[in-house]
Each structure stands twice: as structure tokens, then as C-alpha cells.
């Protein structure tokens, strides 16, 4: 698989106390474990099974994902920003890898 590269989209500006829309995407096959290769053998499951987002160490969302989430999992949600801070995103792969992204956010 090619290198895993998370992508985050935050609004350009927001005031303290706003609920902002956070859009996240990560390139990943989300191999469901239900498909078979050309020889008819099952292809083992390998998905992102958990996704979390924290703002200044406080949990925003903690998601348990199943194979029915599409490839390149996209998750959009809203976060409450009470001031300046840093978002930390973690994607947990079935193979034990954890992909992390951080994004600073300043309120206006």
C-alpha cells in the first residue's frame, strides 16, 4: 500500500465557543475481509478500526469503525473550540499501526 497520508479540513476562522465542522480523510484500502483474490482465497481483513480526535487533550469524538466504512474513510463531525489549541487525530490500523495528525487552531 502507498504511504498513508491523513488530510484534515478546518474552517478558516471561528470564535471561541463556536461549534466548528471538522472534515477528515485518510487514504486506506479498508480491506473488508470478505473479498477473495484471483485464486479464490480470502483476502485478510485490514481496516482502520478506530478513529479519535482530541482538542487540547479533551475527547471530541471516538469512533469504532467496521468493514462497512468505505475505503479512504471520511469522517465529518463538529468540535467545540473554547479557545486556541491543537487538534490531535489518530487512526488505528488492524496491523497495529497508528497514524497521527495534528492541526493547530486559532480562534479570532
Amino acid at each position: 500500500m502507498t504511504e498513508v497520508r491523513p488530510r484534515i479540513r478546518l474552517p478558516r476562522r471561528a470564535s471561541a465557543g463556536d461549534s466548528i465542522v471538522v472534515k477528515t480523510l485518510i487514504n486506506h484500502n479498508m480491506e473488508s475481509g470478505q473479498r477473495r483474490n484471483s485464486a479464490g482465497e480470502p483476502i485478510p481483513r485490514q481496516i482502520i478500526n478506530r478513529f479519535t480526535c482530541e482538542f487540547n487533550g479533551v475527547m471530541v469524538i471516538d469512533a469504532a469503525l467496521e468493514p462497512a466504512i468505505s475505503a479512504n474513510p471520511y469522517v465529518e463531525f463538529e468540535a467545540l473550540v473554547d479557545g486556541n489549541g491543537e487538534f490531535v487525530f489518530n487512526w488505528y490500523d488492524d496491523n497495529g499501526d497508528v497514524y497521527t495528525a495534528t492541526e493547530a487552531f486559532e480562534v479570532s
Partner: protein
Amino acid sequence: MLTRRDTLAIGLGASAVAMLPVTAMATPVDDAIAAFTGGAEMADTGIAITAPEIAENGNTVPISIDAAGATEIMIIATGNPTPSVGRFMFGEAAGTAMIATRIRLGGTQDVMAIAKMADGSFASTRVEVKVTIGGCGG
């Protein structure tokens, strides 16, 4: 030799087996719901699904769920071999309780969402999505 008593016992056994499917076989969808709600009653207000009426490609169907005041949302694809799609728990820093994602649907089916509210109650809703090309591989 079959005695009258044996025959009776066989008959009882057969009827017990015949009754098993009714009592012991919950569907995978029921199991998924019960795992989330513990069998609690579900209201039908306070939660909304936005999904396409017709999805050309079952591999990636955009869906969003709004449930103001929810602490957790579960998505269930009732027609998939494994109905559970995902569970989304909102933390202290969550804004309005909503989530949008893209899911795989094996065929035309109802997509269901259940929200766990802050007071511990549950709400659910479902919407039919017609799928032209299924998304469960093959």
C-alpha cells in the same frame, strides 16, 4: 422395540427442535441493535439521516446523521452480511452531535441509525437506499 413412553419422548424432542429457531435465532440486525441499546425502547424523534435515495455505487454511499443532544450514534446497514457499520462516541469537546461518513452497502436496503441520548434514552430512525451496484466485493 419402541415403547409408548419412547415414542412420546421422541415426539417431545422433535417439537422442541422445531421451536428452537423461533426462540433462539435473533437476526444479526437484532444482535447489533441489542449490543448497543441493551434492548431498551427507542423513540423515533430526535434523530435524522440524510442519505441518497438512489446510490449508483454501493462502495461509497455518503450518509450523515444529526442527533442533537446525543452522546453516541450507531449506524446499522440492515442488509449487509455484517450489519454494524460504526459507533461514534462524542466527547466533552464535541460540538453539535452530528456525523457524516461514507459507507458500503451490499444492495438496496434500509440504513438505520440509533442515538444514545445524554439521559440514557435511545432514538432511532431508518431510511431506504436503493443501490444499483453493490459494494461488498465478490
